[in-house]
């Protein structure tokens, strides 16, 4: 598949005068169609550094625009607007407003890493996609994605108890994403589980749901992890000038 280029001629920049006479020549209607020049003044030259400060984005400045990532990309095959090479370029050149036009598709990366294995410069395009999606969230351009919310729920539990309890994660995830707890597939799964699960396991599950057991001696480990996570978050926010 050829590398898809996005047209920079946007319909909103096409201007036509219904009545226009220039030097005595009538150029009304489509004779006067011109493309309004767009002077981009909002280059954000720090953009590359911002992405590089987020996990996965570290190697973005290596990119030499060969297009191997895009032409190997799983998502690009179904949506030609999904173009990691193009976004990497926009980021490197600081064309933030252009990047934001695609904010609603950037997160669609499925992390298959086909690009990672194709890239001759070890840019880690998959990581860059992740970092970019993360950047969009941190900057408030996109709401947190469902997978981010799931990760957060998961992490919060681990940090609190050193364990995960699936039922709780699902409940927390549904609550955060505004989904009903009683979903058909879940009810069905619970029913079948109940039919086959040994009594003892069922009991343990119920018990764990109510009492939230913790890994023994977890508090110190948990605190250390929490501190580290906060440190990293603070660093990232600082790199993005969000402090």
């Amino acid at each position, binding site marked *: 598949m050829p590398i898809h280029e996005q047209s920079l001629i946007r319909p909103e920049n096409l201007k036509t005068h219904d009545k226009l006479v220039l030097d005595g020549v009538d150029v009304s209607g489509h004779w006067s169609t011109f493309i309004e020049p767009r002077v981009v003044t909002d280059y954000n030259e720090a953009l590359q550094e911002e992405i590089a400060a987020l996990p996965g984005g570290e190697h973005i400045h290596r990119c030499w625009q060969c297009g191997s990532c895009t032409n190997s990309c799983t998502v690009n095959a179904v949506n030609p607007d999904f173009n990691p090479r*193009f976004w990497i370029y926009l980021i490197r050149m600081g064309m933030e407003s*252009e990047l934001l036009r695609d904010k609603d598709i950037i997160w669609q990366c499925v992390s298959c890493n086909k690009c990672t294995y194709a890239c001759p410069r070890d840019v880690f395009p998959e990581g860059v996609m992740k970092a970019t999606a993360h950047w969009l969230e941190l900057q408030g351009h996109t709401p947190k994605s469902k997978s981010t919310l799931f990760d957060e729920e998961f992490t919060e539990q681990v940090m609190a108890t050193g364990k995960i309890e699936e039922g709780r994660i699902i409940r927390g995830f549904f609550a955060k994403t505004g989904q009903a707890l009683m979903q058909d597939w879940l009810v069905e799964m619970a029913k079948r589980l109940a039919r086959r699960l040994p009594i003892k396991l069922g009991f343990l599950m119920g018990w764990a749901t109510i009492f939230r057991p913790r890994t023994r001696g977890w508090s110190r480990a948990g605190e250390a992890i929490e501190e580290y996570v906060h440190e990293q978050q603070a660093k990232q926010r600082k790199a993005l000038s969000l402090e």
Partner: protein
Amino acid sequence: MNSKPILVVGGGPAGLAAAHALASVGQRSIVVEKENRLGGAPILSGYAKLVPSGEWARDAIGGMVSRVEGNPLVEVRKGCRIEEFSGGPGDFTARLSDGSTVEAGAAILCTGFTHFDSVNKPEWGFGTFPDVVTTTQVEQMISTGKGIRCPSDGRKPQRVAILLCVGSRDRQIGREWCSKICCTVSCNIAMEIREELPDCHVYIYYMDIRTYGLNETYYWRSQEEFKVKYIKARIAEVTSDGQKLIVKGEDTLVKRPITIPFDMVVHAIGMDPNVDNKTLAPIFGVGLQEHGHIAKGSAYGALGETSRAGVFVAGAATGPETIDDSIAQGKAAAMAAFALVNQKTAVAA
């Protein structure tokens, strides 16, 4: 060895290498250099650190100069040209511009190149705006220790654009060759600028990046370690808004017209054939190739030979060459000339 000395015309890297090689096998030579100093372009134009060695030109080429100037088998004639050249292999006579005459068994033309004069590309602002400079000027800013400064007011630039292929690969001005070393030199200069001025953004505008062979590391390092930005575009024009230089072109990768302000614009100037070639060719009776460089024989059998027996050629006189290759060619030509004057072997025609 009683053979006549070998005439080496031009005292740049190629000529210095030839003279030294001849001396090392006991062969006398006469180096005729038109300037008052030996060393060729790297010394005469004050280059800074050379690629790919990273050594300062004044040390590396300066070393070659002193090796030759102190050698009893090399006679150096500076500030001098050849005005007449006659005879045949083993028995040439040359008349010099100072009126003297020398006898020589053979001659090696090591007359090098001429820097492209950027005034011939007026759309890129050289000669109109003082802050449009050439790679040679930037080399001098570094080698003199002055540092990278805008010539107009001496300020440190915050944004520098380097335009590649200025005076090369351009049919409009009759220069269809690639000057071979300017990509690598530009990557190196970009890193030097970033090293001296870490807050300065450096952009390189390219059509292709030709950091061939091991020089590729210059391209990679400049991007990976020094965050130099590369934009695939050939600039349309350089103008000024009275304060900054305005660079216009198309960023081809995003189909976007670009208009970007810069403090300094650097032309990566190419290597023209030596302007003297038109007079050198008839004096020495050698042919020029299509672009005006001195035509050379086949590398497989007659490296260093010209169209005239007994007259050899080496270095940038034959086309854009690097220092390393000019040195190798200087030595190869010395070998061929030595064999000829000592009648060891007949050199294959």
